[in-house]
């Protein structure tokens, strides 16, 4: 029952997003949308997915969009042309898709085709073959490890893309000036700063728990990486980018991102060397189950490192671009006033 309520709320919010002209409100609604869909995933027993969606959809993605609208302005201009053609396309496509759903198996039916291939084996045999209770982690990190490797590489590539588009060459002089702005700002947020300072170690600890407990409960490298990054992002937001860059060297973070992918790939190469297939962990140790445990631990660690560092790099570059734009604007203002 609760899933029907949640789904209806999702539609209401999506319609509200269409009508919202203020981008700030639209972004906040998108955050609520993410949180609601995470709740829906919990209701659907997809705890790992809900975990990720709560951290990503409601957390990081809202944050990134907020940073961007501070740079681009938060008002949407009304479009001049009438949206009838778009409405027409959407209604036709939607009607066809609804027609298509009539052949779908009913929600929750156990004899749907999706439940009768591949997955029964995961559910029945994964305890003997992999030896960890969380089936999602078994499938993610062992049965479909090659697939996950591809995804980690995609995340890494996206990080490189953001770096290419937004990175700014920094000079020492710029940093000092930015710092001066930050200090004045922070005296206004004393309570938040002190509370967050106390919270951040616990967020790190929680991230590590999620990382290493992923075999037994919901969690794993993807979720842990995002939570780890969110602690660093929280610090950056409250203490300013230049302070955060002094604490966490960006070049170091970039190297960690690459090392995570390298670690993942190396596990595959080592299992090749030991006579198995690529990412076949059985050969990593004399006991296949121990080999599986070791392999999953290592590749989850690689995933966690890459995801966390890519998220940090992405946020640093967005925030850095913003500081750079403000700095440039200030210089221009100075020049124009001098004239």
């Amino acid at each position, binding site marked *: 029952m609760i899933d029907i309520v949640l789904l209806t709320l999702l539609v209401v919010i999506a319609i509200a997003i269409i009508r919202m002209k203020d981008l700030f409100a639209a972004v906040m609604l998108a955050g609520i949308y993410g949180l609601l869909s995470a709740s829906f995933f919990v209701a659907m027993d997809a705890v790992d997915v809900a975990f*990720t969606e709560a951290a990503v959809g409601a957390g990081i993605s809202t944050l990134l969009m907020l940073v961007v609208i501070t740079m681009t302005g938060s008002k949407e201009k009304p479009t001049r042309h009438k949206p009838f053609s*778009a409405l027409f396309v959407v209604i036709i496509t939607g009607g066809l*898709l609804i027609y298509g759903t009539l052949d779908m198996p009913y929600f929750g039916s156990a004899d749907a085709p999706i439940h009768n291939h591949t997955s029964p084996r995961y559910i029945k045999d994964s305890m003997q073959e992999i030896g960890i209770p969380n089936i999602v982690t078994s499938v993610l990190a062992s049965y479909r490890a090659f697939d996950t490797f591809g995804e980690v590489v995609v995340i890494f590539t996206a990080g490189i893309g953001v770096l290419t588009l937004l990175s700014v060459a920094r000079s020492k002089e710029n940093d000092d000036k930015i710092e001066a702005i930050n200090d004045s700002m922070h005296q206004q947020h004393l309570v938040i700063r002190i509370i967050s300072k106390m919270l951040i170690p616990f967020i790190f600890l929680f991230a590590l728990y999620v990382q290493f407990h992923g075999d037994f409960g919901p969690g794993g490298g993807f979720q842990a990486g995002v939570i780890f990054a969110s602690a660093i992002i929280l610090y950056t937001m409250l203490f300013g980018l230049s302070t955060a860059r002094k604490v966490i060297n960006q070049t170091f973070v970039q190297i960690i991102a690459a090392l995570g992918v390298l670690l993942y790939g190396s596990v595959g190469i080592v299992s090749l060397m030991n006579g198995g297939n690529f990412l076949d962990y059985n050969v990593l140790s004399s006991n296949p189950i121990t080999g599986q445990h070791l392999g999953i631990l290592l590749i989850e660690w690689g995933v966690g490192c890459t995801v966390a560092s890519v998220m940090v790099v*992405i946020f640093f570059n967005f925030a850095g671009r913003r500081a750079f734009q403000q700095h440039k604007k200030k210089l221009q203002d100075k020049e124009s006033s001098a004239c």
Partner: protein
Amino acid sequence: MLIGLFNDWIVVVLMMIGLYIVIAHGNLIKKLIGLTIFQTSVFIFYISMANVDGGTAPILADGINQYSNPLPHVLILTAIVVGIATTALGLSLVVRIKESYNSIEEEEIQQQDNDEQLSMNKAEENP
């Protein structure tokens, strides 16, 4: 038993709302939000399919016989993180577009491109 397809219909509605935002709105950030809605509707589709009546979260424990299907969970879990990475890439493109065009409205950007093309054509005609 029409309620059995309710989830699928909601997915279609959400997907179409996302598509509508992408087509009808000129603001690039709004378009990206629309794309996120579209993307989430696919996640909801997969996760709804994975659900089994009387099932529980796919974490093996004693005394439980019916689990939800773990495979769609795995696919969507990684898709969410890949989704945020690609959204970030899209947002960084928006930032660069704002820097070069000083606007993130599709119409204004196209207008500027057209003007530039016209002036270039004129310069070619009268060297």
